[in-house]
């Protein structure tokens, strides 16, 4: 039973993006990104267990330009998914479905995610004693 050639109602061309729908798909996208990012975490742990050379190689990659870029993206994905995840848990408890509340908490999630990303990176660089 092929599903390839049935006609579908247009959706992305019709509905204007709203905070609710954008944050929803962003939650899914950040979740996928985080799942891919677990590969780096596992590599780092195995490298630490393997010995100094393997560990230094892992640290070198993380410290490289591309490594830091990936880490920055992953950090934002983490904080966004974390904050919006709590918003989801509140919904599961039955709270926050009023449209205004959903928009307020939605913006709160975005602001918190960006803020936590900045704070954690500033703290990280401070802990290292500079860039």
């Amino acid at each position, binding site marked *: 039973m092929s*599903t390839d050639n049935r006609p579908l109602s247009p959706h992305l061309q019709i509905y204007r993006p709203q905070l609710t729908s954008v944050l929803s798909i962003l939650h*899914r996208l950040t*979740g*996928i990104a*985080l*799942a891919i990012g*677990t*590969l780096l*975490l*596992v590599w780092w*742990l*195995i490298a*630490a*267990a*393997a*010995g*100094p050379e393997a*560990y*230094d190689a892992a*640290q070198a990659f993380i*410290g490289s330009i591309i490594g830091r870029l990936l880490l920055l993206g992953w950090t934002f994905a*983490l904080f966004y998914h*974390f904050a919006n*995840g*709590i918003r*989801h*848990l509140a919904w*599961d408890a039955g709270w926050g479905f009023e449209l205004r509340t959903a928009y307020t908490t939605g913006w709160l999630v975005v602001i918190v995610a960006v803020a936590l990303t900045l704070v*954690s990176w500033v*703290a*990280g660089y401070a*802990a*290292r004693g500079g860039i």
Partner: protein
Amino acid sequence: MSLRSPLGRARGLGSAKSGTQHWWAQRLTALALVPLTIWFVIAIIAATGSDHANAVAFIGNPVTAVLLILLIVATFHHAQLGLQVVIEDYVHTKPLEIAALLAIKGLAIVLALAAIFAVLSIAFGGA
């Protein structure tokens, strides 16, 4: 007496059977990940840029090791539950969908086990 038609039963359509369990496990792991994530972010920032000796000391510390293992288990369970839903939503050919689900769940088990093994070998072995 089941109200399902024989054809419905044969085609496997209808209730996903363990949907409620999936939903609840997703929320439980999410709940566990709230404090674990907060701890992990703070700990990893404090340990950032460590050389190998310090990293091993950090990971091998008993409290850290236990928390890391809890983080690994909760993360990979939560991740594979989430990815399962994504695959079910977007993959429309059954054989491909099943293959993708098996691959993701298998990978989650392998990676989680590898990570836990790494933590334990540092904690017990002093790598």
